[in-house]
């Protein structure tokens, strides 16, 4: 094999097409033997990367990972029960080329939508969990994304469960026009009712979280965590640079920048994420009033 060919997988054609501004230099983990870190440029043995939670052992860059892998590394083994897995978008406003893009997104990601929702246990604590998928049209929020998240919150409110969402999104899905914008209001409404019921909502912002997702449920958590170096913002960096006609400072809109500005509670490394979530869930496990009127402490273990 020609050495040049080794890196061909870094830019799969179909993926780039779907992801616009945030796609460059952020490869997913492929099955190949070696991978080049986009930040420190070191070539890493793929198996070393896998053993290290898909974090570069040289520079701590957190590679983007697919939603399924994220669930696998976050929840107690065998406890994830998916909700609404068959829901999928259609071309509701007849937008040019959207049908084809949806089809490609499904092929690329192996998923039906840009978010996976369900229930699971983390460190024995039952929770509703939603994980967005950057491989599906850069995690853009369409009506089905919004619907699945809204249903997840409504389920959690009804069953008095916490909600954890891992966000990754380029924002609202342009191809669904105003109806994608309406998802911001719809999901925020569901978050509010869940919050008013006294229930815990944790968001984990991952790279990148921008646009309509930042301006709705991503920033509405009681506790907002982020992975290191994740890009988080309302407007994407390129849009800002075009507006203000100057270069942005380095690390502007990084998780660490948001921490300093007071918009993120903690930056948590991937290897510590499960334990951190488990601990936070534990601290909020509530006294549940059983149907027969008796009370019991915490969630069932």
């Amino acid at each position, binding site marked *: 094999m020609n050495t040049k060919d080794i890196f061909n997988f870094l830019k799969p054609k179909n993926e780039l097409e779907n992801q616009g501004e945030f796609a460059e230099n952020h490869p997913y983990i492929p099955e190949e033997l070696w991978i080049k870190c986009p930040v420190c440029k070191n070539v890493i043995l793929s198996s070393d990367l896998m053993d290290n939670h898909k974090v570069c052992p040289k520079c701590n860059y957190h590679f983007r990972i697919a939603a399924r892998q994220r669930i696998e590394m976050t929840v107690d083994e065998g406890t994830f029960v998916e909700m609404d897995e068959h829901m999928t978008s259609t071309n509701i406003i007849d937008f040019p080329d959207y049908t084809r893009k949806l089809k490609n997104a499904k092929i690329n990601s192996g998923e039906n939508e840009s978010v996976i929702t369900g229930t699971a246990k983390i460190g024995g604590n039952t929770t509703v969990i939603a994980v967005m998928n950057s491989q599906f049209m850069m995690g853009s929020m369409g009506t089905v994304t919004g619907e699945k998240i809204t249903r997840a919150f409504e389920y959690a409110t009804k069953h008095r469960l916490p909600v954890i969402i891992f966000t990754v999104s380029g924002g609202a899905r342009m191809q669904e026009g105003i109806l994608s914008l309406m998802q911001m209001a719809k999901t925020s409404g569901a978050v509010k009712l869940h919050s*008013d019921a006294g229930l815990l909502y944790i968001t984990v912002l991952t790279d990148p979280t921008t646009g309509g997702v930042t301006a709705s449920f991503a920033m509405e958590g009681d506790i907002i965590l982020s992975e290191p170096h994740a890009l988080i913002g309302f*407007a994407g960096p390129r849009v800002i640079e075009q507006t203000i006609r100057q270069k942005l400072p380095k690390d502007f809109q990084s998780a660490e920048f948001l921490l300093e500005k007071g918009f993120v509670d903690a930056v948590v490394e991937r290897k510590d994420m499960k334990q951190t979530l488990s601990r936070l869930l534990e601290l909020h496990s509530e006294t549940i009033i059983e149907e027969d009127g008796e009370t019991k402490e915490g969630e069932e273990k």
Partner: protein
Amino acid sequence: MSAYDCVTAARANDRPTSIDYITRIFGDSFFELHGDRRFADDKAVVGGIAQLNGKPVTVIGLEKGRNLKERMNRNFGSAHPEGYRKALRLMKQAEKFRRPVICFVDTAGAYCGIGAEERGQGQAIAENLMEMMTLQTPILSIFIGEGGSGGALALAVSDEIWMLENAIYSVISPEGCASILWKDSSKTAEASECLKLTSQDLFKLGVIERIIREPKDVDSKLFDSLKNLIAETLDKKMAIEPDKLVEARYNRFRKY
């Protein structure tokens, strides 16, 4: 009129701005309130208390400015986080005193800049969406010109949304859409069609309740009839129990 004609009309410099509507509908009764109590007073958002047929109301408007000097001063109607926080502060105040809220929406979008990001543009908008959804008093939003994405939605989680005939409401600007889709920002006209951003389109999609006809001579009857329509609608909404009102508002957005 094509979708692109609407975009042009919605952005026209001689189009009445929020201040025109406030002045013509509420007259001298409008008392302006300033500041978000946290950082600054954002001049892209005008807000205050006024009287409508003798009854107190809270009025908030995204203001583009009526001449170049005003437009610069008001950042062309693109609010910073403090603008959305000021709007929310006034809405909470309206809830406290149980008076209805009227929002005039006219913005190309929330401002994209360093300060806006540093002060949490996304968080400010998100908080408005959440809080407006359960605000225990009626909210009516009227799109008078441009309704630019999240920056417009942050004043439009309302019981009813009305649009002037030639106003627009879109998830992304037609220019932005064209540049992403075709890598060509000059294909604005095509993008305008695709986005379904006209009042007619949005009425068909069930996103708005009412289209306000625009007479050729805007000054003639528009403001008087709008005033009566607002008063009539708010009287009806004020008669509804707050809990029922909030439930209906939730269901209004739940259906999308």
